């Protein structure tokens, strides 16, 4: 059974309504804590917080166009072993998809978490966000909400949305236990709350919200948004393919890379506990560099840059959810999201896989079928 309810907004303020809704959930006996993005008191920035006392939800702001990190990693930290209580987590759709990938990789438990997703309005790159938010964070979030609901989905006040968000065809989470809907609802008037699983049903029943029907305009609005985003995405794919289709172009693409590996740290689905690129395997002997240099007369330092990126593509592209945190983390503005999504789209397609779609689909490289890819085997 699906429960659909509506929450009316006071003074056109969705944040206040969301904060009250979260407080209601936290007060339930079943829920020990809530993981929610919150504006920090010391600086105008929004980070995930773990809250056990409902009186500390006054700065919760899941709509802010700030996406400092993919919180799937945090949710995985909280659920890698039973935590002794259930945690509710307010996540973006891409964070939920990354979380599902981590569950499949046995780095998180789905049972101990109640996934709540708010329709994603998109976000800026980290640097652009602090400029945008200025001194008044909550007010800027409401401005942003109205702007996106008004159909402006690529830029606002001179700041471009993050590429990952402009190309994202998953603005709404189908896998959350509870979905909070904004699209297709009257801006500034109401938001939708909908359960999508039994766990979600259970919680919404306890909250006793007024029943409603999902307005038909909602699905239309979502479809329109997805098709706009998809056409942006396809253009991005074409451009990126063109920019990376030879060794020379790849060298140009990554020439600013300083091997800091921030993209790997920020990536929610780069799943190795210890990355081989920071082990002793890559702590080459000094004479080795000399040999490499002597072979062609020149090598670029630090070495192994392309090796690192292509290996990462081979390792995690089938799990890439396109959240864009790799680009966010890059100190030298390499368009990583563009390349990783372009490749990930292809690699997921060949295995008929979609990262984060379902817990029932195994990661493609952990299974096989006997009668597939026969064209790959043999030499005639």
């Amino acid at each position, binding site marked *: 059974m699906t429960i659909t309810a509506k929450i009316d907004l006071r003074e056109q303020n969705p944040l206040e309504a969301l904060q009250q809704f979260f407080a209601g959930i936290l007060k339930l006996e079943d829920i020990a804590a809530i993981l929610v993005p919150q504006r920090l008191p010391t600086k105008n920035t929004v980070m995930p917080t773990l809250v056990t006392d409902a009186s500390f939800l006054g700065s919760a702001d899941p709509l802010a166009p700030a996406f400092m990190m993919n919180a799937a990693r945090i949710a995985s930290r909280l659920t890698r072993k039973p935590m002794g209580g259930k945690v509710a987590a307010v996540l973006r759709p891409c964070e939920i998809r990354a979380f599902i990938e981590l569950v499949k990789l046995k780095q998180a438990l789905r049972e101990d978490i109640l996934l709540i997703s708010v329709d994603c309005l998109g976000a800026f790159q980290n640097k652009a966000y602090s400029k945008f938010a200025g001194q008044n964070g909550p007010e800027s979030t409401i401005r942003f909400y109205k702007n996106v609901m008004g159909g402006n989905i690529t830029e606002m006040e001179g700041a471009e949305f993050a590429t990952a968000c402009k190309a994202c065809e998953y603005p709404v989470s189908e896998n959350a236990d509870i979905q909070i809907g904004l699209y297709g609802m009257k801006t500034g008037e109401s938001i939708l709350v909908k359960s999508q699983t039994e766990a979600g049903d259970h919680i919404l029943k306890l909250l006793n919200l007024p029943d409603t029907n999902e307005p038909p305009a909602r699905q239309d609005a979502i479809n329109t948004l997805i098709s706009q985003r998809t056409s942006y995405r396809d253009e991005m794919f074409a451009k990126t393919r063109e920019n990376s289709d030879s060794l020379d172009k790849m060298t140009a693409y990554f020439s600013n890379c300083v091997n800091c590996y921030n993209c790997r740290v920020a990536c929610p689905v780069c799943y190795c506990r210890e990355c081989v690129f920071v082990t002793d395997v890559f702590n080459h002997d000094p004479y080795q560099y000399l040999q490499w240099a002597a072979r062609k007369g020149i090598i670029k330092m630090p070495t192994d840059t392309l090796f690192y990126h292509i290996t990462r593509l081979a390792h995690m592209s089938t799990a890439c959810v396109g959240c864009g945190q790799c680009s966010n983390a890059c100190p030298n503005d390499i368009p990583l999201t563009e390349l990783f999504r372009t490749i990930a789209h*292809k690699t997921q397609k060949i295995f008929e896989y979609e990262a984060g779609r379902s817990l029932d689909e195994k990661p493609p490289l952990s299974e096989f079928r006997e009668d597939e890819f026969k064209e790959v*085997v043999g030499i*005639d």
Partner: protein
Amino acid sequence: MSEFEPTIVAFFCNWCTYTAADLAGTSRLSYPYNIRIIRVMCTGMVDPQYVIKAFLEGADGVLVSGCRPGDCHYINGNYKARRRIKLLKEILPQFGFDQQRLRLTWIGASDGVHLAEIMRTFTGQIKALGPSQTKLKMVI
């Protein structure tokens, strides 16, 4: 100018293809010396990064070869390897690597003759493709 002699890196599984290579040797069959064989316990352990490394270091071709279906010493490592090769064949061509440079074969322990044939064919094909661009240019 002397004829182009390619470098081919081959990952052979211990139980089947490597044994076949041994057999080819003891049977005094000859095959091109362009192949550099690396023995692995199973093709299922050939991480894509081994293949990527070989290409970036200037290998003109990479051959991964294991047991025939049903013969894998570890039950299904060869099927898993097939998915990894498929994955690489999707990724590498985007960056200008000809996908013909990467091959997967299944050669049983008793197939020494077949192995020598495969080596000749593959070497010939790689010669026709010419040297890999990574051999000639700086790779970052």
